[in-house]
């Protein structure tokens, strides 16, 4: 039993943290995160060069990592810096393609950006309700349906689309601009698109892809949990600094007992959420991967809400302003919950496991 990062991962985290601290301060982050293309292509290339994408994939597929704790390490650092680069879409696509023979190098090198299109307006989280259909058309396929809030699609060269061919879910590739696309920024920074597929020509990448997609989504969920842990650590530190320095009624506000107790409760919940994220990272290759991921994502969802709301409340008016970084952390922490299944959706998965046991 060992809860320390290995030397390799500590080095990766250190160099990533240093890079982000140097090149991605919050002012820069806010400049690029809220204006098209909603990230910084130059930094993206540098991040890829740093090897953070390679860290997401095992050696036999051209990476140098690929374990749960590698993903944890990368996303924890991204979360701490509130980095809006589309690393999550890359992870989702890389892990979905693990079930294929595809050459991952163009993605790993950062030269070709992908997005994974899964969710739909009436099926934001659940694969079973997906309605986008794939139909044969000559030697190829066409896709018809609507994909909503596809993270990173606004800047993607290509998009992997999950579509239904009868009962089977398949994975299909289209060019980034093959379908009508509406791009937009997100309230917490970064960008996404809605896709309107209308007999859009596509290549089949993987038939019977459901297991691969589920696994890829679980990797994405782990990444979001780790990102949340990093962002919560940063939000907590900011809040505690503020509580130590800011005085009201002639005393530091951190000396008020009601706030002290709430700060302690918040810090305790962060540690609990970190614990389950660590556990999920350790269980990514186990048969009960999905259950552990759902447990973690549920607790993360509950905890990010607590941290976002309490940190704003306890810092008061200043945290309501765009100027002050805490507000952007609060938004990101809040919106992480609605990516890849919110707290309730994941709770329902844990409930189902209990009921089936």
């Amino acid at each position, binding site marked *: 039993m060992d809860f320390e990062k290995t030397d390799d991962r500590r080095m990766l985290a250190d160099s990533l943290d240093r890079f982000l601290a140097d090149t991605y301060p919050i002012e820069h982050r806010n400049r690029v995160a809220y204006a098209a293309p909603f990230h910084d292509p130059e930094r993206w290339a540098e991040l890829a060069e740093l090897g953070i994408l390679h860290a997401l994939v095992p050696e036999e597929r051209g990476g140098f990592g690929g374990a749960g704790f590698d993903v944890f390490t990368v996303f924890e650092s991204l979360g701490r810096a509130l980095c809006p680069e589309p690393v999550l879409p890359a992870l989702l696509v890389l892990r979905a393609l693990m079930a294929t023979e595809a050459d991952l190098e163009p993605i790993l090198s950062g030269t070709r950006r992908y997005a994974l299109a899964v969710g739909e307006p009436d099926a934001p989280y659940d694969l079973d309700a997906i309605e986008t259909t794939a139909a044969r058309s000559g030697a190829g396929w066409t896709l018809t349906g609507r994909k909503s809030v596809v993270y990173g699609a606004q800047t993607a060269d290509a998009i992997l689309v999950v579509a239904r061919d009868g009962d089977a879910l398949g994975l299909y590739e289209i060019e980034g601009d093959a379908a009508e696309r509406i791009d937009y920024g997100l309230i917490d920074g970064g960008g996404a698109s809605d896709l309107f597929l209308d007999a859009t020509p596509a290549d089949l990448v993987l038939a019977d892809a459901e297991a691969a997609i589920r696994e890829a989504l679980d990797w994405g969920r782990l990444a979001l949990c780790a990102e949340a842990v990093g962002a919560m650590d940063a939000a907590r530190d900011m809040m505690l600094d503020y509580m130590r320095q800011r005085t009201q009624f002639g005393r530091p506000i951190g000396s008020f007992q009601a706030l002290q107790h709430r700060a302690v409760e918040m810090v305790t919940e962060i540690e609990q959420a970190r614990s389950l994220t660590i556990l999920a990272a350790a269980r990514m290759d186990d048969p009960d991967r999905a259950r552990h991921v759902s447990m973690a994502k549920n607790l993360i969802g509950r905890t990010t809400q607590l941290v976002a709301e309490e940190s704003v409340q306890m810092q008061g008016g200043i945290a*309501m302003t765009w100027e002050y970084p805490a507000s952007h952390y609060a938004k990101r922490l809040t919106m992480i919950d609605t990516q890849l299944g919110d707290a309730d959706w994941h709770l329902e998965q844990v409930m189902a496991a209990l009921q089936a046991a």
Partner: protein
Amino acid sequence: MDLSFSPEEEAFRAEVRQFLAEELPEDIARRNREGRELEKADMDRWHAILNARGWLAVTWPEEYGGTGWTPVQRHIFEEECARASAPRTLSFGLAMLGPVLIKFGTEAQKAELLPRILDGRDWWCQGYSEPGAGSDLAGLKTRAERDGDDYVINGQKTWTTLGQHANRIFCLVRTDPDAKKQAGISFVLADLDTPGIEMRPIRLIEGGHEVNEVFFTDARVPVANRVGEENQGWTIAKYLLTHERTNIAGVGFSIQAFENLCALSRKSRRNGRRMIDDPLFAARLARIEIDLEAMKITNLRMLSDATKNGQPGPESSMLKVKGTVIRQALNDLSRRALGPAAAPFPSEDLEGNAALVDPDQAANAARYFNNRKISIYGGSNEIQKNILAKTMLGL
């Protein structure tokens, strides 16, 4: 006990409902329902419609052009406005300065200023908070030094809501720097075009421009613009903070939010069923319905006490605390109900795009973030709890 409304009150409700059906512009109601900020022109329009009907100043006595309504009538009006998605009127002139002038102003001040609030010539904003002072009003630093018939004001105010639309500001300033904290404060009025007063926008968490900073640099304001005695501003400040305000619980807002949320959760689907049929979501919705239903009665009970006693007791602070908790929970639930669709940044581009975002719900995530303010401003919920512990519980 009798929870029914009297026939007169029911008739009043019918009258209000008919007025709203006939006079509330549909575009204003829609924009308000969609959770988007109103333009100044829309606010002015609705203000004028209410004024024409004589229903603008709901807390003022009739002699000053107010409605003279009972608290129950105000409650009914508020409830009907919420049901019809009518926007709230601006509180700065009507609910804050007006009552202050009526209680503390000179006859000349009342005669000059009250009509200008009603007819919309004056749009007032508020200079209470200062950077670094937060809920601790007694620590304010903005100074007004007497120079002949003027005060010369230097300092900075912040959180001035909708100041960008205002032409006048009322502020608390320190007129005696040597006095103890609460003493030595005065309440003064200023034209915003006074040289030396500058307003700068503050961008809020969700990206909107709603509040401002106001800088005073040797700004000269006539001493005649002071309301009440010099150095007695604290009395007015306390009056304002504890004064009975219509619907401190925000029940109207919450009713509107709850009805929107029910409609959304019956319309949208998740996991192959209506959102409202998801048991965990339905449980959240039912719990908040119950809390809100209770809050309506708690609000009425306190209104009824206030009517009997002439003034609300300190327990009305409970309405503010619990009312904001309920409103924020509703905002949270709307955001949850939309799921990822709550994520797009509200923009004029997207607003027009009905294919993309349900227009009824476009601004829900923004509203959630923006409404985190309601438990912070006007005396944070923490301050309210401090007050309640002392005054109501005797701790």
